[in-house]
């Protein structure tokens, strides 16, 4: 067990289970998308381990601004699969009333913020949240995840500079999966991502995001730094996008040279191998973990599919705290009462 550092068997097994659940969920959703049951999906396949590591190190009071490709992170932080399906199916139980595309969650109860599509635009929000935390003497730091493509956005620049100038407790974690849709990271930027903090006086570190132990070790340093109030920190987690960018994407168009099964990078296989080698678990366990995940996910989707869509008239709610005459007039239009 020494090789796995201070981790207990329980922690490792939980991490593994959640990674497997996330992977299984990804595949289930992709399937459901093909069948027209779910509209869209951005799979986390290949990026599970860095997400799990963040989930393991983040405390309850820490606020996470996740991005659209963080399934494993939600699971590790305890979000039930039922809630994930409610959002993906955009049913009447969805906290967001079926307003957002799949993968755009707002799991406030689990101390997540809200996911949007415009890449990078949550980064400045996370800085504001950190300001508020310090101002209100709240416990906890702010963690924000994003892709390699996001480092090119104006929001990234604004956010890192602000976090640094105001010395805020924000941990920036870039999940560098090598691609922004079809654009490889080396055409996104000529610099190493973890060095981009230099432009703001923010320290940075690169970790192997496909390795749980390496991710935890690297992240721990970053968490400690930020938690001690020293200011923001930038982690680049090098990882691997096994699948397409999304269910709308066809990577064969741009990824021909590189089609592999990704197994040498697959973070789940790597953890499996490690666990087996260390004798934490045996092959039986692995098989049953996968079977359990599949059973849970199949059952949950079946169950959540029966929940009806949100009431149509709700599309006029929540534009404002109270609808103006405009929304009310338009609501009557839909009712046919106008």
């Amino acid at each position: 067990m020494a090789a796995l550092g201070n981790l207990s068997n329980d922690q490792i097994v939980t991490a593994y289970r959640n990674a497997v659940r996330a992977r299984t969920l990804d595949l289930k959703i992709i399937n459901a998308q093909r069948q027209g049951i779910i509209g869209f999906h951005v799979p986390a396949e290949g990026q599970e381990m860095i997400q799990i590591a963040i989930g393991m190190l983040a405390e309850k009071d820490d606020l996470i601004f996740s991005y659209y490709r963080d399934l494993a992170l939600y699971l590790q932080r305890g979000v039930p699969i039922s809630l994930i399906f409610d959002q993906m199916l955009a049913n009447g139980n969805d906290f967001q009333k079926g307003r957002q595309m799949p993968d755009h969650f707002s799991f406030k109860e689990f101390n997540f913020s809200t996911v949007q599509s415009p890449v990078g635009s949550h980064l400045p929000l996370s800085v504001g949240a950190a300001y508020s935390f310090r101002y209100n003497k709240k416990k906890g730091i702010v963690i924000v995840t994003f892709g390699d493509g996001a480092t090119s956005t104006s929001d990234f620049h604004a956010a890192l500079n602000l976090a640094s100038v105001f010395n805020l407790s924000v941990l920036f974690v870039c999940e560098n999966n090598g691609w922004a849709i079809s654009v490889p990271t080396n055409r996104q930027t000529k610099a190493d991502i973890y060095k981009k903090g230099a432009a703001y006086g923010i320290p940075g570190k690169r970790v192997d995001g496909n390795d749980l132990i390496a991710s935890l070790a690297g992240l721990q340093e970053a968490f400690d730094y930020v938690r001690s109030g020293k200011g923001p920190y930038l982690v680049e987690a090098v990882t691997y996008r096994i699948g397409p960018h999304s269910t709308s994407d066809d990577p064969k168009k741009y990824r021909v040279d590189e089609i592999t099964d990704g197994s040498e990078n697959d973070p789940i296989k790597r953890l499996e191998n490690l666990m087996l080698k260390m004798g934490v678990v045996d092959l039986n366990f692995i098989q049953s973990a996968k079977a359990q995940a599949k059973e849970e996910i199949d059952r949950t989707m079946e169950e959540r599919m029966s929940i009806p869509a949100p009431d149509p008239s709700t599309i006029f709610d929540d534009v404002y705290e109270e609808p103006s005459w405009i929304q009310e007039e338009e609501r009557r239009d839909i009712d046919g009462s106008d």
Partner: protein
Amino acid sequence: MRSLRGYRKRRGGILMAQINMVQSLNKSIDLLMANDERVVVMGEDVGKDGGVFRVTDNLLSKYGEERVIDTPLNELGIVGMATGMAMYGMKPIAEVQFQDYIFPAFDQIVNNAAKIRYRTGGRFNVPLIIRTPYGGGVKGGLYHSQSGESYFVHTAGLIVVTPSNPYDARGLLVAAYKKNDPVIFLEPKRLYRASRAEVPDELFEVEIGKASRLREGDDVSIITYGSMVPVVMSTVERNGVNAEVLDLRTLLPMDIEAIIGTAKKTGRVVIVHEAPKTLGVGAEISALLAEKAIDSLLAPVMRVTGYDTPFPYTHEDLYIPNEKRIMGAIHRVLAY
């Protein structure tokens, strides 16, 4: 140790001040900050400098750096960070130094601030005020003169207000503060120091969504707002026009009852604003009338507006609607 210069007592012991719009806004923010710890001020040069128009003067020394925040030069960052603060328990009043410089923040305003309540099913909200001076008449050329209200009025999820006098400036700012939604607070910079008015030395509200009828009249209705209000008032007064004048004050949502009401009363409507005509706010007013009051209209609905050009420097006086152009439209509808 507040100075009482320019103040005098009035009924009920409430101090009344003869102050201009900058002073009214400055005092409003001061009162809000004194009243509510969640309120902070942020933007470029809002601290020591007190804002380039002095709207945040002296607040830094009174409330300190944590509450009066000089930011780096990035409007996206200012608005994005303020939005995050607003989502997590604060009530920021963010300043964009000129409305012309709000466009770098446009994505944060339109895609985040305006849509966060909706996209989260009401689980998050953004009680944020974005103050920004707008309009011409200060020899600012293309980039210190724009009237961009349409960009915001077209954006559901935002509230858009603009005062035309020191009293409304206070009342609208307080009302904006009470809202739990993002408010674009447009300050007609030409009026900042143009006149003084009596403003009660306390927090009071001017209801958002309600126009002010500045003048009753029978022959023609003039619907306007912001910097054009004094021009319209002096025009109708100097020319003895029997006009009803509405100061909209809120541009989103507009006071539909007042608009329809006055159109039905006079049957003749002239809209005056400084923003370009095409899809200026006047277009929506006119469209509301064409939809809801067509039978009452006795004449074309005329729009007297800024031109569909960028804002010029040398000839800015030609760009901004003036008495001659307003009277031209009034004559036209009266003669119809």
